[in-house]
Structures are given as C-alpha cells and as structure tokens.
C-alpha cells in the first residue's frame, strides 16, 4: 500500500533541471529521509509535493488521489503536513493561537475543543508553559517546536519536515528525536525528513532517498546508502566513490 506516490517528477527553471524524473513512494507509517548536498533539489521536491511549486512534469498521488494540480490547502486537508526550513509562524498570534489555527482544519471542532486539543499538543511537546506567549519572544528552538505542533495539530497522515534540527542545540535535537519517536509509537504517522544531521537520519529513517543535482542517485536502507559508491562520491568528492571499486 502506498500513501504518497510521486512518479517522474521533473522541475525545470530555465536551463536548470532542479529535479529530473524523481520517483518516490512512502507507505503509511513509514519514516523516509531525503538527503543530498546543498542545492540537490530537496526543498524543491517538498515544494512540488505540497503544491507550492507546480512540477514541469510528473504526477503526485496522495492517499489514492491525484493531487498533481490540487492547491496546497486541499492537500493539507487531505492529510499532508509540512514544516519549513526556517520556521514560519504567525507573528501576531500567540503560541496557542498558532497551534489552534492548525487544529481548525477540522471545521466541526468548537472553540473550546480547538483550545483543549492545542494545549494537549503543546503539553506533549513540552511547550504548554509558553502557550500564551507571543511567538516573537520564544527561542529559535522553541519556535521550531511550535511550528511542528501546528503541523501536527492538522492531524497529518504524512508529515514533511524540512531540516527540523537546523539551528537546534544538541539537547534540543535529542528532544526532537525522542518526541517524534514517541508520537509515531502512538499513531500511524508517516514522515519524510530532509536533514543534514546524519546522526538523526541514520537513527530515525527506515529508508533513505539520496538526491544530487536533482536526480535520484541512491535509495535504500541506511546501511545500504552509507556504503553506496555514488553517495560517497556525491558527498566526499569524485575520487572517493570510484576508489571504492
């Protein structure tokens, strides 16, 4: 069974192929990492999956429906969630209100249900004490956790995380990993993780997709990818991968 199925996704910017014929599948509850050097097309790929950037070619199926041309908010309502590389919160809303905006995706929830659900989510992420603060007064790490809470409050089946550990200190990264693991133990939540922190990727991911210059250069379990010559060459330079042969 497939939750997300992207086939032959290409994105061209003028003469630059940001993505070329990338195939990608995610099963329900699966944890997949997408890695690659800077400029490999990882964020563009997430933008295509969430509908922020239309692909030049290819198809995106989500939960059995073709969403290639669907606007972003429809995909989110269908169960896709995402956080951003640099954290994007609603600056004029409090922490709680930010999360409530996510929870309001279900229109049948009353105001008090929204509040209770959002407070519960903040509690699980260790942020309930900050609920009534302005987001501008939070630390960088806290802001990123609030964004994650907001995305989770939408109740996604698949969560796309764009470098969630960037800018976090070691303790915060440990916390983030522990909370993601705990969450996935309780509910069926598939995750696609873009991350440069290889320790995090290797510990969490069941499968890894490696992109370079917009192309898929490898895919497999963490162990397979770690020893793949193409991957080593992309990360460590031309000679290295070839020298392994």
């Amino acid at each position: 069974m497939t939750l997300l199925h992207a086939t032959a996704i290409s994105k061209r910017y003028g003469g630059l192929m940001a993505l070329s014929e990338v195939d990608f599948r995610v099963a329900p509850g699966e944890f997949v990492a997408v890695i690659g050097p800077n400029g490999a097309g990882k964020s563009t790929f997430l933008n295509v999956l969430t509908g922020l950037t239309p692909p030049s070619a290819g198809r995106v199926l989500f939960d059995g429906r073709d969403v290639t041309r669907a606007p972003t908010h429809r995909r989110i309502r269908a169960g896709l969630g995402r956080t951003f590389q640099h954290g994007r919160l609603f600056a004029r809303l409090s922490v709680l209100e930010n999360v409530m905006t996510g929870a309001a995706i279900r229109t049948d929830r009353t105001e008090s249900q929204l509040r209770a659900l959002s407070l519960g989510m903040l509690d699980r992420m260790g942020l309930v004490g900050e609920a009534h603060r302005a987001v501008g007064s939070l630390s960088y790490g806290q802001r990123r956790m609030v964004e994650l809470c907001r995305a989770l409050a939408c109740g996604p089946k698949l969560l796309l995380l764009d470098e969630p550990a960037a800018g976090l200190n070691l303790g915060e990264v440990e916390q983030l990993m522990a909370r993601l693991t705990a969450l996935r133990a309780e509910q069926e939540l598939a995750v696609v993780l873009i991350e440069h922190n290889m320790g995090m990727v290797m510990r969490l991911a069941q499968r890894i997709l490696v992109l370079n210059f917009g192309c898929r250069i490898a895919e497999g379990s963490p162990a397979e990818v770690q020893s793949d010559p193409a991957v080593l060459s992309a990360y460590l330079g031309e000679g290295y991968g070839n020298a392994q042969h």
Partner: protein
Amino acid sequence: MRRYHSLLAAVAILALGGLLSLVLADYRLRLLNVSVISAIAVIGFNFAFGLAGLISLGHAAFVGLGAYTLAILSTAFGWSPWLAIPVAILVTTLFAGLIGYPLLRLRGHYLALATLGLNVSFTIVVTNWISLTGGTNGISGIPELRLGAFAFNDERRFLWLGLVLLALCAAFAVTLQRSRYGRAMMAVRDDETAARMTGIDVTRVKITALCLSAAFAALSGTLFATHVRFVAPEDFNYAHSIIYLAMLIVGGEGAVAGAVIGAALLTFLPEWLRFLGDAYLAFFGLMLLAILIFLPTGLVGLAAQLRRLGGHREAETTS
C-alpha cells in the same frame, strides 16, 4: 470569556455614547453622528486591512455604493429605507465579491493602486451616470428612518439608532476577531504560505475579508444617506478612503476599539484645531507620520504598552 469581550465593547459604546448624547449640544451631536457612521465603516475596513492585511484604498467606494443604492431605491423606486438597507448591503457585498476575484490576485502596493483606481472609477461613474445618480447634483429627498410615529429625524434620535448599530457591529467584530475566522485572516496576513500549510484557503479568506469590509461599509453608507438625506459624488471620493485608513492607523489597526477611537478622534480633531486654519493639514500630516513611526500600533497599542508598564511596576512593588 469571548462573549464577555464583545458584550463589554457593546456596553462601553452604548454607555459612553448615550451619556454624550444627553450632554452635548446640537453641532457636537452632529459630529458624534458622523463619528459613529465612520466608525462602522472603519470597523469594516479593519477586517480587510487590519486582519487580512489587504492594503485597500477604495473603501469609500463601498460606502458610496451602499449610500447610492439606498438613495436610488428610496427615491426613484419609493422603497422604505428599512428595506433598502439590507438590499444595499447585499448589493455592495456581492459587488465586492465579484471584484475581489480579479483584484485580490494583486498584492501590496499593486492592490493599493488598483483599489484606488476602483474608488476613482466609482466617483467618475456616479458623476456621469446622470439619469440614475443625478450627477454632481447628487440625490436629495432621501426619506428619514422612522419606527411607527418615532422618526429618527434629529441629531439626538439618530445618534441613538447609530449607537445601537455601532454596538452590534463592534460586538460582532470582536467575536469574529477572536474566532477561527479572525485567526485565519491574521494568519493570511502574517504568512500566506504558512497559512496554506494549515489548510487555509487563502483566496477565500481574502475575499471573505473584503466582502465583510464592504458589508460594513455599505451599512455605514446607508446610515450616511439617511442621516444627511442627500448624497453626492464627492462624499465618497478617494480622499475619504485615505481618511478611513488614517482613522484605523491612528486608533490602532487590528483592534475594534482602535477603529472606533480613531474614527471619533479624526472627526473631532479638525474642530478642536480650527484655530490652526490651513495649517491644520500640515499638523495632520505630521501627526500621522509621528504615529506611524512612534506608535505603529496606534493609540490602542499605546494603551496596551502603558498597561504593561504599569503591570511591571506593580509586580516590582509587590515582590
């Protein structure tokens, strides 16, 4: 808690306005009526500008469309103004929805220019469609509003009606602002992409905000028409749109109280500063600049800052 806030806004308006209606003399009452009518328009403008962040400079066109619809229906067609009010609101809201689809593809300064153009076009159309609007002569003889034998035909009586409507509008606006719909509008203003990422249909939220603002503008316009009982093109030219914007900025954008305070202050200020003569405009410009630079959240923001400062002092003395 939320009910309490909207109730508080309504009670404050009725109590303060009611009190003033008993102590003020005729000319001041007239100004107060103008304030109340403007305040309804500015509360509406706050949905578009303050909450959803749509820089619109055409709000007076919606006020004018409401006023002219009532004027035409009640004079040429002999409708009761009570019946013409909801129809005028409906017509204006539909118009805003229709024009919103193409207009709201634009953002920021482009939207400001396009809405300014809308306002200028409105003035040109009502000036030149003489058979319908009377051109520059305007439309006179608009019937007064009356309930049975009680006619709202003097300043004090009209003010009572205006205050009740303003209180209802303020209570509605406060309730909406604190609901998921208000939060969605603010989310769209703060970050459209992140708003989409929480399942918000950004286009729909923007059009709703514009329609709401137009509906309030139309109500304000119908009150203007039944208060002055005469409408002319220059009552709704783009300068009035800029005044609505100034009222909201001075009072405090994003806040219902700010809309009401700003509307009252900018209606009375020219009277208080009459001794300045033509220098008033220079003063007005400088005041607006000073508020934009030093008080970007307006007078309501200043009050909140002072309260916080007072709160800190209290905390210090008690600890």
